[in-house]
Each structure stands twice: as C-alpha cells, then as structure tokens.
C-alpha cells in the first residue's frame, strides 16, 4: 500500500507540498462525497414510479447564490494558501543565499552535472563534471542552473518534489535542500524523443564526510578523461 502514495519526501519543502496536496484532497474529497452520494440518493429516491409525476421546479435563487459563493471562497482561499509556498520554491529572487551552485545541462538523452569543486564557486579551476550522477550533501541548499542543448527536458526528482523544465536558449534557476541521505532517481518528465524513457540519472544524498570522500575521488585523477567533463562525450546513439 505504501506504493499507492507519494515516495517518501527527501527535501525541505517536500512535506509542505504533500500537506497542500492532502488539504486539497480533503476539500475535493468532501465535495466528491457530497455530489456522488447525493446523486445516488436522488437516483434511488426519485426513480420512475407509475402514477407519480416529477415536481415542476424551475430553480431557486438562494441555492444558486450559495453554490456560487462557496466554491468562489474556497478557491480564493486555496489560491492565497498556495501562493507563498509557490513563490518560496520557484521565485529566483528567493533562492537561499548560501546555496551551492550546480550547473545542470540536459540533452538527448542524458544529464550533465557541473560541480563547483571545493571552493564552492562555478567557473573556477577546481570545477568538475559528472554524467547522469547527481551527488549532494544532506541538509545543504543547492541552486541549480538548468540548461538544455537540444530540446525541452524536465528536471524531475520525485523524492524532492521538484520539477522544472530545461529549455534550450534559457537558463532557469531552481533550488532544493535534501533532508535524507540515500540513493534516489532523477527522471526527464518532458517528452524529448525516442530515448525519453531512459533519460535517467541517479541522485546520491551523502553525509558531508561521504561527499568529501567522493569529491576527492573525482578531483584526484589529473587526467581529464576520468572526470568525464566533456559535454559531447558519451552521447547516446539515436
């Protein structure tokens, strides 16, 4: 039954998103029950019977006002309730200042992750890259700059509840903070061609110590071949 629900959240805002979903589920669930049960009751109670005639009722203004106002109020509430969470996640101006920058480039049918190296700065000599593997430290903010080389892809990490399209010609910012160590998956969520289904990357959320060891193993070899940074390498055959 666990598989009939969200994969367990592993990011700072994941639980809030799930709570919003559950709130909407309660509201819509109540409406669902009222409508469907009401419908069934009417179908049984007012089924055709010989010698009986339907009542000639053309409407009721009070009822119309009630069922116009209530949905309007609920919708305004849901909009107001959702907006702050949305802005906090997606507004580029509100990305946490201490976030480590990552460069993510999508292309048919792979992900390339550019890491800032130990100095935490992109565009310096200690930068390194990794194909189809995202390694991050738990409880650390990350700022992702998303780009696409060919068509539109979508950066989707289900356990982080994060989805953001990568559009060629645009640089789009997104952020997350992992809250749980472990191995997860990143998927492309936008149809990008025949290999869309296998445009998958693995996400490793490490403890700081684990990450330091992994980073050292990435930087240690001085030969560039081992670090796999060239953007064109390993292009999957189409």
């Amino acid at each position: 039954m666990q598989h009939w629900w969200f994969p367990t959240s592993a990011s700072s805002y994941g639980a809030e998103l799930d709570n919003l979903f559950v709130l909407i589920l309660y509201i819509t669930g109540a409406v669902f029950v009222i409508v469907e049960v009401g419908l069934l009751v009417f179908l049984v109670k007012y089924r055709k019977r010989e010698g009986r005639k339907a009542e000639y009722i053309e409407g009721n203004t009070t009822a119309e006002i009630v069922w116009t106002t209530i949905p309007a109020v609920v919708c305004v509430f849901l909009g107001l309730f959702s907006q702050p969470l949305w802005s906090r996640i997606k507004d580029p101006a509100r990305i946490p200042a201490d976030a480590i920058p990552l460069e993510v480039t999508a292309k048919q049918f792979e992900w390339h992750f550019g890491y800032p190296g130990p100095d935490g700065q992109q565009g310096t000599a200690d930068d390194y890259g990794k194909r189809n593997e995202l390694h991050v430290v738990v409880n650390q903010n990350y700022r992702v700059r998303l780009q696409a080389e060919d068509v539109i892809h979508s950066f989707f990490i289900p356990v982080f509840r994060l989805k953001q399209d990568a559009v060629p010609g645009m640089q789009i910012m997104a952020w997350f903070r992992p809250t749980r160590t472990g191995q997860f998956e990143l998927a492309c969520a936008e149809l990008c061609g025949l290999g869309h289904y296998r445009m998958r990357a693995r996400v490793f959320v490490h403890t700081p110590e684990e990450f330091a060891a992994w980073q050292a193993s990435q930087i240690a070899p001085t030969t560039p071949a081992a670090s796999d940074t060239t953007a064109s390498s390993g292009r999957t055959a189409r």
Partner: protein
Amino acid sequence: MTTAGVAAEHLEHALHDDRPFIRKYVFSTDHKIIGIQFLFLSLFFLLVGGVLAMVIRWQLGFPGKAMPLPGAWPSTMAPDGVVLPEFYTALVTMHGTFMVFFAIMPLLVGVFANYLIPLKIGAPDMAFPRLNMWSFWLMIPAGALMVAGFFVEGGAASSGWTGYAPLSANPEYTGATYGQQLWCLSLIVFALSSLLGSVNYITTVVNLRAPGMTWFRLPLSIWALFITAILALLAVPILAGALIMLLFDVVLHTNFFLPAGGGQPLMWQHLFWFFGHPEVYILILPAMGIASDLIANGSRKPIFGYHSMVYAICGIAFLGWVVWGHHMFQSGMNPRLGTTFMVSTMFIAVPSAIKVFNWMGTMWRGNIHFTTPMLNGIAFVAMFTIGGLSGIFMAATPADMYIHDTYYIVAHIHYVLFGGSLFAIFGGIYFWFPKMFGKMMSERLGKIHFALTFVAYNLTFFPMHILGIGGHMRRIYDPSQYEFLRPLQPMNEFISLSAFALFISQLPFIWNFFHSLFWGKKADINPWHDNGLEWTAPSPPPHGNFETTPTVYHGPYEFSRPDMEQDYLPQNQPLPAPQPVAH
C-alpha cells in the same frame, strides 16, 4: 418572415426530392446528412484512436513483450510484435491527435452542431449549406494526411499531440521528418474545416431561429454549441497560425521556435495553449449542453436554474481565454505569472460547480427514467465531477510541481474527455439516433454497453491517479527503467487489462448501431417524449426539416407541468390557459 419563405421553398424540395444520389447522400448540403457523415467519420477515428491506445497499453502493461500476431506488425513499428521506442512516441502523439481533433471535437461539433442546430431552432437548414458541405469534405483530406504519417519514412509525428518545439521544429530530434510535416498540414486543413463550421453555426443560431425562439428559449445544447462555435472561431486560427510557423521551421528552416537561430521555444507553448485551453472547453461545453438536455428529459423536470446554466457556459468560455498558462507552470515561464494563472484557473471551479449542482437540482424530486441516454447523462455528471475536482490539484501551482507531466494529468484529461465528453456523446447518439435514422437502437444492448463501459472505464482510468501520485511520468516507453516505478508495474498491468476490457465493451455499441440502422424498430416521431422542435418533425426529417415553420411558445424544458396531464409539452405547442396557481 423570410425564414418561413425559405422553409416553404425547401418544403417543395422535400416533397419532390429528385436530387441525384450523389447530391443527396455524398456531396450533400443538407445539415442532417452532413451531421451523419461526420458521425461515421468521427466514430471511425474514435476506433483508430482506441486501437492506438490498446497498443500503448500493451507496451505499458507488458513492456518488451510481443503483441498478438507478432508477424503482422511492420518492422519499422514493432518488429516481431515488440513495440519500438520511436513507434511508442508516435503512438502517444497520434492517439492524442486523433482523439482530440478527429474524434471528440467532430463528434461534438461536427455531428451534434450540424444535426441539432437547425432542427432545434426550427430552421430548414444551415445559413451556408455549401460552406457546411466543404467543412465536412475538408475533414477527409485532413484525416487522410494524418493517417498517411504512419506510412512515410521516419513514421508518424512523434513530438506529442501538443507538438512542443524544438522537438517538433527540427526533424533531427525525432527522425519523423515527413510525419511531422503531414501532422502540421493535416491540422491546418482541419483548422479550415473547423472555421467554416463555426461561421455557419454562429450565423445560423443568430439569424435562423424560428418565430418565438428567443435566446432564453434555446435548449442548453444549442447554447453550448453556439458558445463553442465562438470559441472555435477565435481559437482555431491561432493554432493554424502556430502550425504554419512550425511548418516553416521544419521545411524552410526558419527560426520561430528554434533557439539556435534566435527563436523562442516557449512561444510555441504560449500559442499552442492559447488555442489549447479554449479547445479543452470546445471539447466539454457541447457535452455539458447535451447532458443538460438528456438529464431534463430523463428526470421529466425543467432544468434547475436555466439562466444560471447559460451564464455558467458563458463564464467557462470567457475564463477559458485567461488560463492557458496553467499548462506552463513548470515550463520556465516567470513564476509570478504562475500565481496569476493559478487564481484564474481556480475560478473555473465556480461555473463548473454551478453546473454540477444544477444538474443535481434537476434530478431532485424528478421522476427519473433510466433510459440509456439518461444513464449516460448521469455518468457524465458523476465522471465530470471527478475530472473537475482532480483539476484543482494541478491548478494549485505547488501541487502541480509534482504531478505535472505524470499519469495524474493523464487520469484528469481522461476523466474529462472520456468520462465527461464521451459519455455525453454516447448518450446523445442513443437519444438522437431515432431522429437521425428513423430506427430505435436496442435499449437492452444500450444498457449492457453502458454498464460495461462505465465499469471498465473507471477501472482503467481511476488507478492512473495513483500512478501519478507515485510519480509515474507520462509518455515513457518503458516504466521498468526506473526503480521507483517498478512497484507500480502490477498496477500498470491491471490498467492495461481494464483498457482491453473497455475496448471490448464497445462491441455491443458497434453491433447495436449497425444492427439498428438496418433492422431496428421503427421510431415514432417523439420516442423520448421530449420538447425540442426536432421531435415535431418526422423521423427522419425530410430535406427542409419542417412542413411549416414552427412557432415557439416557451422554453424547451416544460416537463411535468402541474396544470397538464401529459408530462411534456413540445416547444411548438402553446402553454395551457393560465390559471392562478396557489402554493
């Protein structure tokens, strides 16, 4: 008075109908024949779209396993019966395209607008019968071009029914060079057909209403079809414009949507959805109108809140223009715009709720006859409610971030377009078949078809919500590639088996349709005891429809009047002499 003159002229035609066969049944300008032509064509494409869905479900339920008749599949699509990834992307693209543009839209607009508008407003025909004929005959090349995609090198278009650029704009990205061009050309021709139809429907409703048929005496089906025609008139040219730009990018190497040459991929999405969201309402409003007629008839009661229902149709149509951005929350569009579109989208719940509660109000204290059309009308309300409510989740931008592009969206669209539109369409076919062909369809087979479809439909599409919550992406060829999706595979298999059952459940309908066409019981002039003007004309009505132009005395929902023995009162019969009624 002119209407009456035209009618009289047409009546002469009707009396000595010496048109040759080809003018009468093939290149006919009679709105009824054109409606019936659309019926056969769009049911055919519904079947095509259904078959494609079966192949999709085979691959998702049993990834990599050979399909039945492994040798019969072309090696470019499914060598030894195993679906290729490039064929799969073509399948999802063409399934959506056929269903939206060649099945649901022509079923609602081509069939019911054509057949019902003149009959229900008391007109002898459409305002522009020849344009109307063209509107149908353009659908033939449009459909042929679309089908041709499967037979050209590189296969059919593979960039989704939404044709997102740059995937669609540069043939290198999908390999479907000719398929994508044919897709564009086909839909451009389709747009022309739709335009000719819309002009006709609008003009006819505005100008050809019979004496006494005031705006607020129009049946809700006609209101819905009229508003839909306005939406289509304004929205479809935007699609055509975008398609021409896309075709230029593909063929002439322009750069409207290709960033390397300075183009904007997101512009395609804005254009497509500025058309596409009104299009979604084009696909549901006529169904709402048809369902309203069916429910009032089946409940033997006036529509509850007729005026609210009309305003709700107009409200949905208006809001339809300002919500397109909700398809683009995660697209890279400015997130502040996301907030705006979230609020406008939420407001669609208001007119939708008004409609659902008014349908319930119509059944309340009714005398509900469970005829096949009524059963389908009830299913429409029950299923549209689910589709409407699931839409609220994706309207909330943060919740959409997770469920966008997952099976949750697939579940939602099928609850609206199958659970909503298609049930109303089936109800409408059962209801108006006697008028169209002068024969009754079997109620027994109709109920079997309804029950099987209702159960198999819910078993197929409801679990898709759960797949979506599990994170299952849309349009993926092989879910077993992902560890987190593997536990969902048994559900995928269950959905596939249900989908096969849903397909087989349509056999009673096909049998019933054709058997009744030839051997059905002869239909009376008004078998459902309805009030619409179409039920005052013979079954089937002759060329020119009415012997004399009807005069309309009241609205279409005068059921179970307390001052009358009979529980219905056709619109061409005066109300009983008024007498003070004390409550």
